[in-house]
């Protein structure tokens, strides 16, 4: 078996279970994001992979070999920390050369490699600068260069872009993804930013309360969320309680024709705002009142009340004039855009 395997990993701190029986596989050369709200155990999981925490139980394997008892400094991995953790007493060149020097690299070979790495992160010629002379984005690049200096088997990043402003963050996301594809290095990033995860990764691991909610490609996780939590956490979702009815499903505010839901108890249905069709005329299957309209520039968000349910819809900006607060409109929720969960939220 190749790649990184986590088997039944559990981590407890005292009575708190931070990571609860997680099993997952990361294939070689893929980019995986661990995504979840703070406190979901994603950073703890990453730290266990790095060897900075010991799992309470379970195995970590890399290329089939058990890694649990290998201390962090022998795991041959590169890690970028949330604080970046650049050495304040060393300059840029010395920081990047650090892993090479402690492995006994000659000054000449280190120098050449540092130059190569700085070129790679598009920051040539800053070897002699002090860390304090760099901007946030530049420090980010230095940290990445340093983590990749020894061509590690695994590249781990813990909220690496959280200190950057929004615009720079997006640029760095794309650069990081391009760099990873060029090097073909197995990469795991911890983030709480779903846009970041969507931008960069081959696979998203959505975590909540120490467990994996879903592991899938970004688009699959977005289109086919495995749980209401995933639906809600990745982008926006309308979560509606429905009951089985003739030829469809009914809810407090109306009817969804053609949607199959289990008989008996209520089911939870998720619909993305961009899938909700709003029309100002006619008698659709759902009648709703416009309660708020949010101009977003590229599109508008319309907040609607359909019975007891609050539904958000996205519409093109030119339609704004049709939807004033207080107007009564009709909605269509296409059944193929609906994801049905059981009453408890499971499939």
């Amino acid at each position, binding site marked *: 078996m190749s790649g990184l395997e986590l088997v039944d990993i559990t981590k407890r701190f005292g009575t708190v279970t931070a990571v609860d029986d997680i099993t997952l596989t990361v294939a070689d050369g893929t980019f995986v994001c661990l995504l979840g709200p703070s406190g979901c155990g994603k950073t703890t999981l990453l730290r266990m992979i790095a060897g900075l925490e010991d799992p309470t139980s379970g195995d970590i394997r890399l290329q089939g070999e058990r890694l649990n008892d290998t201390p962090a*400094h022998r795991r041959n991995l590169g890690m970028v920390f949330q*604080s970046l953790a650049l050495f304040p007493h060393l300059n840029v060149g010395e920081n990047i050369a650090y892993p090479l020097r*402690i492995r006994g690299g000659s000054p000449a070979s280190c120098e050449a490699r540092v130059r190569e790495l700085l070129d790679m992160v598009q920051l040539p010629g800053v070897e002699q600068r002090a860390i304090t002379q760099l901007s946030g984005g530049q420090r980010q690049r230095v940290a990445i260069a340093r983590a990749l200096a020894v061509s590690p088997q695994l590249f781990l990043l813990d909220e690496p872009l959280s200190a950057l402003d929004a615009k720079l963050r997006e640029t760095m996301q794309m650069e990081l993804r391009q760099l990873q594809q060029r090097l073909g290095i197995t990469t795991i990033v911890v983030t709480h930013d779903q846009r970041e995860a969507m931008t960069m990764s081959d696979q998203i691991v959505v975590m909540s309360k120490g467990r994996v909610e879903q592991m899938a490609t970004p688009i699959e996780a977005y289109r086919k969320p495995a749980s209401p939590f995933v639906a809600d956490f990745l982008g926006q979702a309308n979560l509606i309680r429905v009951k089985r009815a003739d030829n469809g499903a009914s809810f407090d505010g109306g009817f969804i024709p053609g949607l199959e839901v289990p008989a008996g108890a209520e089911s939870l249905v998720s619909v993305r705002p961009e899938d909700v069709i709003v029309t100002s005329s006619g008698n659709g299957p759902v009648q709703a009142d416009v309660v708020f309209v949010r101009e977003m520039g590229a599109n508008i968000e319309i907040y609607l009340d359909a019975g007891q349910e609050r539904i958000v819809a996205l519409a093109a900006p030119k339609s704004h004039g049709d939807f004033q607060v207080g107007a009564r409109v009709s909605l269509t929720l296409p059944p193929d855009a609906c994801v049905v969960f059981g009453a408890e939220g499971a499939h």
Partner: protein
Amino acid sequence: MSKLLTRMFFVCMALFLALPIVVIAGVALNDKKTLAFPPQGLSADWYLSVFTDAAWRSALVNSVLVAATAAAISVAIALPLAWFLWRRVAPWAQFVQVIGFSPFILPPVITALGALSFWATTGFYGQPWTIVISHGIFFVSLPLVTITLGFATIDREVIEAGMTMGADDKILMKTVIFPLIRPYVISGFAFAFVLSLNEYIVAYMTVGFTLETIPIKVFNALRYGYTPTMAAVSVFFVLVAVGVFGLVARFGDLPKLLGAWSEGDET
């Protein structure tokens, strides 16, 4: 409060702190062997006598040797202790830390009397090296405070970064931890050095009758015969203290060492 009042207050305090030193600096300029101020006739002889007079010179050498060794012992005790407290979870180790602080918090006469009792009981009373150990213990608190502060400023992620890059504990100590706390170690040494140089009571109770340090010699001169040399040597000591703390400030962040937030933290 007007600026003028503030400034006057500062000037008054500066005068209060400086006046005694100005007077002894002047007294040491006297031409004759008298402690008159303003000095009668000007002469640098008394200042030179600190180094030319054999008795004063030997006291000076004793003081410097004792202070340097004692400060080294203080650091040698404080450094591993501070490291252990930083690296390990061991509540009982705090007890050792409290013992390290106590000689400095309690009135000095207690440490002095304890040292006297101990060296007398063990039969080493009066041996010149006993003062080195007793001073080393007495001033442990100073490097302990500075080095503990130094460890607290190390971002633990920096250490972890070193680990993920392949550094084991030993390499980390050499390449990351020690370089980061070195300024704090040096300041701790400097504080202990200057205070040991000036310390009287512990020195007096351990080696008072066998080894003359400068404070002991100044005290004896106070009792048994004034000489402007004692003023000169005092001025010299003030300069040493100011010089050493000036260096600490030059190469470190003195306000931070003394408990202010670092510059970056200020709003």
